[in-house]
């Protein structure tokens, strides 16, 4: 007779669903990865099946294997429940749960990447979260049927490591909210721009139209070094996207400024492909220049575009920058460029 080590048969102790949910929320969902690993570990201990808990850690991380992992886990739960004659879920319930959970979980990622709807993303995360809590309740029932032992001593439901990590995350949350609060104070003048709105910058004597959603004007210095006359920030869901209006004095040479933009963009966007063109403003002897450079860096696309307009005295420029994922780039770039090219200089 082989006497297996005693610890192999002990599972994680019961933890209230609300505490589990709290831990998941506090850790911004990261605890889910640990939960999957511990569930797999307990299944291995109970059934002796060759689960590799560390791999289960990555199932929700990698996302796409999640339906298969969940299927295995649910089937194992059902087997254990049948073996111990515990109340459990039917096969259909397992399928429904897996479909809903995996669908909501993966769907949330897809929405974040492709659809850019924060509301839908939130709803999907909430559905996945609730389903997760149901599953945890089921696991609790299974664990209660076996001898359990915490890895470390628990205080008020959580062990020291969980307290530590939880408090660390709470500190991060607090810091983040404080920073946002500070930013909110600074951004008192921040206002959203409705698509199709004409932006008039009287201090620079220019106007242009923003035709995309999600733009807001931000205080000077938010997206530039503070030398701009006016700044706009693009949709928050994108990595980085902004417009800034700059003015130059009559002593600044048009050709020099336009050429400097070209050289600078080549320097800050390694391997960039650029186009540059100059034309006359209709009915005048005054010039306009459009320089745009784009590159691909670490899988993302970057674009700088400058629309420089010469006036009787001085120059004015609208600079646009975007740094987004390739799919978003294709989606946003054409109108982004059209809006920059639509800059109109009024008399100043």
């Amino acid at each position, binding site marked *: 007779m082989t006497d297996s080590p005693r610890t192999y048969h002990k599972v994680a102790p019961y933890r209230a669903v609300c505490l589990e949910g709290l831990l998941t929320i506090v850790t911004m969902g990261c605890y889910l990865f640990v939960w999957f690993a511990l569930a797999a570990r307990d299944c291995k201990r109970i059934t002796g099946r060759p689960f590799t808990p560390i791999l289960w850690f990555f199932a929700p991380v990698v996302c796409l294997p999640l339906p298969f992992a969940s299927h295995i886990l649910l089937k194992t739960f059902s087997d254990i429940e049948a073996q111990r004659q515990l109340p459990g879920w039917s096969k259909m319930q397992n399928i429904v749960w897996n479909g809903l959970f995996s669908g909501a979980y993966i769907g949330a990622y897809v929405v974040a990447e492709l659809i850019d709807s924060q509301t839908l993303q939130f709803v999907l995360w909430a559905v996945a979260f609730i389903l997760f809590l149901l599953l945890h309740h089921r696991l609790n029932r299974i664990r209660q049927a076996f001898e359990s032992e915490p890895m470390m001593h628990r205080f008020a439901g959580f062990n020291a490591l969980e307290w530590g990590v939880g408090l660390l995350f709470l500190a991060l949350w607090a810091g983040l909210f404080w920073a946002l609060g500070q930013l909110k104070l600074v951004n008192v003048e921040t206002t959203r721009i409705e698509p199709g709105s004409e932006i008039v910058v009287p201090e620079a004597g220019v106007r242009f139209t923003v035709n995309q959603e999600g733009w807001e004007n931000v205080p000077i210095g938010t997206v530039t070094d503070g030398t701009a006359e006016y700044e706009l920030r693009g949709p928050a869901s994108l990595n980085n996207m902004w417009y800034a209006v700059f003015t130059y004095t009559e002593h600044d040479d048009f050709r020099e400024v336009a050429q400097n933009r*070209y*050289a600078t963009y080549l320097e800050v966007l390694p391997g960039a492909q*650029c186009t*540059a*063109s*100059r*034309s006359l403003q209709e009915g005048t002897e005054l010039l306009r220049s459009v320089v745009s450079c784009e590159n691909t860096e670490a899988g993302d696309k970057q674009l700088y575009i400058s629309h420089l307009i010469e006036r009787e005295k001085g120059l004015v420029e609208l600079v646009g920058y975007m740094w987004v994922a390739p799919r978003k780039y294709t989606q946003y770039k054409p109108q982004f460029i059209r809006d920059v090219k639509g800059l109109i200089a009024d008399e100043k």
Partner: protein
Amino acid sequence: MRSKLFLLLSLLLTLPVSAEFLQGDALIARAKQLASELEPDAHSALTGLERTYKVEVKDNKVTVYGHKIWFYPTTASVQNNAYESIYFNQLNEQLTVLTAASISPAGKVNYVNESHQKVIAEDTYNTFTETEKMIVSFPAVEVGGITLIAYKIEETLTAERPFWSIRSYPQQTADMLNYSFVAQWDDSARLYFDNTSELVSCEQQPARVFCYAVNLVAAESDSVVNWGDQLGQITLSTEPDWQAVKAQVRPGFVNAIENNQGVQPLVDEFADSADGKQALIQRIFEFVARDIRYVSRSEAGYDIVPHNVDETIDNRFGDCKDKSALLIAMLRAINIDAEPVLVATKRERPGMAGAAAVGLFDHVVVCFSFAGQQYCLDPTDPYTQWQSTSDWIQGRVALNLSNDASLTTIPRPRYRWQLQAQSDITITPEGGQQELVTLTFLNEYASLMRQNMAGLSQPKRLEYMVDVYHEVANEDAEPVFEISGVDTMSSRLTTHSDTTYEPYFNPQQGISLAENDSWLRGELSSSWLNNEVYGQYYPGFLVESEYKIQVPHEWALNRFPPDLNLEHQYGKLTRSYRFEEGDELDTLYVSTTLSMPSRYLAVEEIKAFNDLLNVFYKQAPITFGHDS
């Protein structure tokens, strides 16, 4: 009627007693009187005190009397203006100086003698007049002094030369306090009068006209001015209209062209060697323009009448009338309906021509239609290909002798100056360069360059082009030139230059280059207009510049010249580029076109025009490099 009486009364009330022509002591007394009436320090430049013309036509004899009195308030006015120029045609006019003298501020009179008078030929290139100029240098002119002159010019109208005209500009480039013009004629010659000056009041009666003006301010001068187009003028002529002018001039041409026995053999000879009609026109024009040398032949009887075509062929010389008659005869021999067209080479505005007069014109050319296109050929121009128009007649006032049309202008091409520049540059890894440039001057531009080089020896021609290169491209370079097309009358003149530049930058310190597009910039810098008072015609130019720039592949160029699309009502500058990578050398191709069509520019437009040239000039350099 009441207004006319009022005008006449006004004129009589304001008319100085001696507004009539004076000479001798009366003129001296008048001059002293006017000088005494001058307000001290009121005049700081040469000032005309009085200018009077009196025209009398009696029994077919025309006499023009004139007197002028000038005041010299400054040393500069004495230095520059103490002389008088009187224009006349010595073939049929007789000039007599009646009185000429200076009067010192102290009142001393110094008379002009014969040694102070000199007659010089004014222009041997004219068609209808052998204009002479008598220059009278006044003696002993002092600051604060005055000069005076009275003269008469007499001419008798004959059956051979029954026409006459006079043109007077009341406003000149100096202030004139009193101006008068009076003319009267009998039944022997009816005169026709026209006044385009708003500064002069005129009263016209059946056989008399009287004009008067006071305190005429000096006309402002400018960089480029055709005074005849800008200043109002009084014209008196024997011709009622332009058809009458044609009737005076045309018979001479008809007669000269009819005597054309020598034409057909020449045309037959040229036809044998010419491939097609265009080539034949070219050959005929070359013969008349080059093999018939220009000699002024406006002797008596031939001031508006060409010599017979056969005589011109035999002599192998002639003036513009003779050459035009010959060209017309030869073109008609190949069934091209060519016609003589009178040209006023100093006039561009038909509306300012005044009364119809033969004397408006000083040149004649040949115009015809061929293949739906109108051509005007100047047979005195041995440098311009027949399909182009000599630049000095473009846009000039013209009168076709063979149709019913009134005054017109010789057509202007869209671009008088056309240049193609092809530059092939190889930049060495050390930062030097080898440059091959082909310049093709087209049409009128080819003609101009040909004119500049035709009289030079081959070495001097090469030196000339090196000088041009130094002026336009780089004064330190030593280009080696080849030139072709100088000795022909083709539409193209081509030069090739080969220039080696020692390293002038260090590629290790970065690649940032600017090629000036010098030939394009050269044309721009020569196009600036300087007029500030009067509008002017801009002749137009078209420059097509092609660059092929080769650089070492390892330089990895990534900054290229911006595309240019600078379009304006006055002109257009466009540029595009193409970049090709190679194993050892990468090649940047840059195409630039600058087009500035000919047009009239009002003076208010000139600043904007120059501003545009300046913008184009600044944008012309081709910039490229590597940035990282």
